[in-house]
């Protein structure tokens, strides 16, 4: 990996990553976190920071098919990886069925957990298109939500999976 050293002796590295289908080349430090590359370098601010210790899931993105907490992934680890953020979930202006179902079920209140929640749900439905309620709850257990009590989020994921959902 190409590196340059500044006057104070701090090394910086050149990395390439593919985000939402576009490839970017950025210069990062050894301790730069992926979330900060996404938010500060690429201006993709849909990925949220809630704790910066990997506990809340607000910064969840999909990296090579798996949901990860981008606040505890070093930018260096993302070199050469394919990443999907919330900005890449809708295609050509058409909402993903999860985004539609989150709206239908009012699974969104303050919205701060929503990007991470949708990406964890998306990763779940990709590997398991017909999950049980328990599997849904397990899959989003790393994404904290302080507003909804999870009921409508679970309903939204069921709806996106094509499962029947209780009427409100």
């Amino acid at each position, binding site marked *: 990996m190409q590196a340059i050293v500044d006057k104070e002796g701090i090394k910086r590295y050149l990395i390439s990553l593919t985000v939402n289908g576009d490839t970017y080349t950025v210069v990062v430090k050894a301790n730069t976190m992926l979330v900060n590359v996404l938010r500060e370098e690429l201006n993709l601010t849909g990925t949220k920071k809630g704790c910066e*210790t990997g506990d*809340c899931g607000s910064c969840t993105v999909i990296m090579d098919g798996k949901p990860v907490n981008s606040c505890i992934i070093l930018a260096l680890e993302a070199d050469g990886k394919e990443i999907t953020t919330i900005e890449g979930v809708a295609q050509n202006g058409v909402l993903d069925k999860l985004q539609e179902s989150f709206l239908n079920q009012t699974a969104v209140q*303050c919205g701060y957990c929503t990007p991470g929640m949708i990406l964890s749900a998306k990763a779940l439905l990709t590997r398991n298109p017909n999950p049980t309620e328990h599997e849904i709850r397990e899959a989003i257990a790393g994404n904290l939500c*302080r507003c*909804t009590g999870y009921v409508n989020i679970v309903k939204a994921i069921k709806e996106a999976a094509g499962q029947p959902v209780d009427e409100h």
Partner: protein
Amino acid sequence: MGFSVVGQNLPRLEGKEKVTGQAKYIDDLNFPNMLHGKLLRSPYPHARIVAIDTAAAKALPGVKAIITAEDLPDRRHGPFVQDTPLLARGKVNYVGEPVAAVAAVSLEVAERALSLIKVNYERLSEVLDPLIAMESDAPVVHENLDAYPAVFPVQRHGNICSLITIEDGDIEQGFKTADFVFEDTFTTPMAHQCHLETNGAIAAIDAQGRVTVWASTQSVHLNQIRIAETLDMPMSKVRVIQTRVGGGFGAKVELTVQPYCVALARLSKRPVKIILTREEELVATRPRHSSIVTVKTGVKKDGTLVARQIKLIYDTGAYADDGPGIVGFGSLMANGPYRIPNYKIEGYCVYTNKVATGAYRGFGNPQAAWACESQLDIISRELGIDPLEIRLRNALDPGDKTVGGQNLFSVGIKECLKAIKEGMDWESPKSKNRGRGVACVHHLSGLLASSAYVRINQDGTAHVAVGAADIGQGSDTTMAQIAAEELGLSIEDVAVVSQDTDSTPYNWATTATRLTYMAGNAVRRAAADAKQQLINLAAEVLGLPADKLSARNKVVVSVDEPQKRISYAELGVISHWVKGGQIIGNNSWMFNEQPFSIDVKVTGFPFRVLGAYNYGAHAVEVEVDHETGLVRVVNALTAHDVGKAINPLSVEGQSQGGFTQGVGYALFEDLKVKDGKIISNTLLDYKIPTAVDVPAIKSLIVETNEQTGPFGAKGIGEAPLVPVAPAIANAVYDAIGVRVKDLPLTPERILDALKV
């Protein structure tokens, strides 16, 4: 009464921007030339500041401004008692108290600058326990207490920040007529709001010296007033704009980082952003008060409550903040939604050298309800009366008076109890290790003032400006529904103006379960005013008397001759171009019932007006593991009397979200303090409920028609958290016969109780 927009399950107006990542929260904003600010915080619970040396930090390249107390007006602030300096002055009173603030070209430089500031402290003895703090020889947190201005008739001395008493009937006589008297003491820990988005703000100064602050806040208006007060600026020079808010739950009502941003921006002449870290949130913002509540209750054999004496001690930490209000409110709520003829309630708000505590969903009610709803369960089991039945026997009816004597119009507590009894199949058999519990809540929707204006655009659509800060609960959608219903428009025809002190009229704050009721009233009345103006203009144009016209579906139409009509769009054009000018309806509103009847003895109460009461009852089923002590909530049912549900989906969302916060409070949330320092400083140490910690909560809505509310509405926000902890503890008792009186109900506490 048939409604077309009110009562509909409409999706959130701002939902799409939130599911696509477009919503802009405070940390998503950046400005050219912007600096990053950080706060230096006290490492000690109580210490004199001998000297602060900022020279080395100032010399660090990239540092643009440093402030200490010396650089700020010598004044203290606070919503009830003005006891809080922006930056510690003379001494520090808790671990985490801000001592200095730095702005630099990057966060890294700002953090390095903090490490270069030398503060010479001289340790003082601290007082950390509120019971010790109330003793006469305890270390004193505020030596000049009597000099601090207060906005209410405060009673205080020593470390007692405020004392409130409410007394009615004859307490001695009441206990004499009781068949049984119960006395129990309950405690609760500090609990954190844990809004997922941490507090943050950006301040910038324009060439005229006018400050604009962008903030994650529950009230742009309160921010504007407080910034002006603390920094000696006229309000005309302070503009506050709300960004999207990632949850607040009370934590974003009063100022957090805003004044530091402003002071640093004024000094550096550059925009300054401060975003708190999660650790700062947990250790140095304002969590819910810990409490010690003693309840003595006199009761007849048939379960009738006849007398109650309550002593509430709430630890407000180093500064009052909302403490006097919280203790006052908790005292007012403490009796619960029941008829109790004789009572005496004393609420103590006590200073200690711990983090200042403040508003968190429930505002003093959860601590009081934990004690009183737990004790009611103890009483029902001793008397052999079903816990749901004893509540029904004592519950308030419409026309009753509540604590203090305020008249009650709509009271749906009995309907809530009946709804959960049926919904939970209350008397059905339970499996082993399972138990059921019930608890009730009453809460206010109200306090202080709200205002709104509605302008009718040239095309007949409307803009609604109301100081109602949507922090995720969905008030923008609710306000649009109320305005659309009153105006006879569809929701697509109504725009809700974003919160900005330059354009939205005054509203105290998103707090006290008050937006639907208070701001909703202002919006409905402003819309009615605009509608009347539309009708009056139509009367002139059509040559008909105004009282023979009605306005709906975007048309003003003659009641007698429906072919005589004129559309809002035509009236919009006429008003803008021909006659009268733009139609603007407006309203400012306050609740105006007397809070106390004259025979009630009240001292030190912090509010002048109250509001309408909403009611709720929860039933839960738990499973307790005898081996591990782990409590699992397997079934949950909530029922809330909200008046009229303007948007039932939003009411359900509040019910389920509030319930879930209550599960955390009941089972594991505990902001632990060691030697005055909060040690639960990550979300790993301070756990909040995840999707696997709660069941599929079912929420029922009980509709009553509140005659003082907009379309009969009251509110929902805070109430759903309040009864959860006692309902769960009561269910634990039902399951295993063990009573825990201290929150949270950790496995250790359950196992210890089982051993006894």
